[in-house]
């Protein structure tokens, strides 16, 4: 088979929406710390020069015609990974909060899991800690997902993830575009379709651009939306059956196979 255990083909997917300030640096860092990986930036309908900066930094760039949200960008990336027969797909955010030097550590964990989450705040003495309702939301999500996944997860909303072929094929077909769908619901889908999920502690850096909202009001809204998103994810039937998607894209995948 093409998948040799010691030398997997790795695609790093970087969803980017108006990240022209940080995207170039993020890509350079990924390429410097992991010279063997391919980088695909999915420009999520940016109005700035994100796509140009990404291309200049040496990434392949898929440009979405308009903003779809992280879910849409990531499904695009997973479809690309599937059609180009990558063994591993990695998600790294464009804002520079994920340290790509942890990537080899995450990849190693794929030996006993289909999805590895780079978990923030998973170590003692972490400087960045969420508080209040936002923290309660994260704890709740982690508890529920750990239970249904029969594993121990502490940070389910991390955008730093590694997925193997099995998970890629699930995500290429089903990756929700709704609120928190890109993190929480996608994990529920993966678990439901039989993927093993695990996590590995990583250091999180202060975002180079933008900051997660910490005001009590917005954290409370976040908590409520998280509960709704989680509840919906749990009661939904998966795999979803939209009368689009799977079939046409697999046809295109076959076409792509024939091309050099």
């Amino acid at each position: 088979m093409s998948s040799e255990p010691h030398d997997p083909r790795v695609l790093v997917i970087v969803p980017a929406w108006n990240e022209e300030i940080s995207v170039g640096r993020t890509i350079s860092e990924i390429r410097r710390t992991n010279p063997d990986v391919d980088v695909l930036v999915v420009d999520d309908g940016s109005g700035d020069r994100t796509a140009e900066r990404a291309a200049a930094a040496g990434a392949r760039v898929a440009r979405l015609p308009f903003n779809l949200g992280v879910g849409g960008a990531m499904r695009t990336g997973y479809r690309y990974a599937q059609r180009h027969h990558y063994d591993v797909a990695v998600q790294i955010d464009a804002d520079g909060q994920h340290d790509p030097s942890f990537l080899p550590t995450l990849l190693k964990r794929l030996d006993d899991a289909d999805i590895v989450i780079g978990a923030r705040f998973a170590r003692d003495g972490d400087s960045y800690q969420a508080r209040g309702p936002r923290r309660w939301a994260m704890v709740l999500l982690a508890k529920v997902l750990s239970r249904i996944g029969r594993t121990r997860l502490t940070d389910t909303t991390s955008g730093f993830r590694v997925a193997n072929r099995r998970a890629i094929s699930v995500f290429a077909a089903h990756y929700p575009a709704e609120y928190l769908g890109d993190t929480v619901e996608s994990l529920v889908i993966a678990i439901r379709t039989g993927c093993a999920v695990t996590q590995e502690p990583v250091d999180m850096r202060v975002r180079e651009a933008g900051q997660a909202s910490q005001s009590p009001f917005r954290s409370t809204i976040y908590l409520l939306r998280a509960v709704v998103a989680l509840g919906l994810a749990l009661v939904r039937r998966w795999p979803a059956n939209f009368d689009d998607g799977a079939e046409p894209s697999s046809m295109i995948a076959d076409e792509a196979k024939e091309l050099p």
Partner: protein
Amino acid sequence: MNGPEALGILGAITILLTLFEMMRRHRLREKYAVIWFVLAIGALTVALAPSLLGSVSEFLGLQVPSNLVFFVASLVLLGLSLQHSYELGRGEERVRTLAEEVALLRLRLEEIEDRPADPDDPVHD
């Protein structure tokens, strides 16, 4: 034939004719037309036999027959807007899928276009 009766018949016939004309011009798809068609037939029935409305209201224990009309009308409108939400959601999902495909096809096209110029192209190392 009294005034309200004529008005009801006129309204029902107008809806039916509009439906027919819109479908003839491909302005309305059958899946949306069905519920309007049922509605128009219902309105026509009530207009032709007003006593029907009274007896059904009486059977249901409603004092004023027009309340039955309002109740049924609001249910129908609710159903219609629910159907539209459903269709809209499905349409959005399809648009999303198409947008993703467009992005991937564009990338593929760029890769193919760039290939012959590879040695001279500094972007593609």
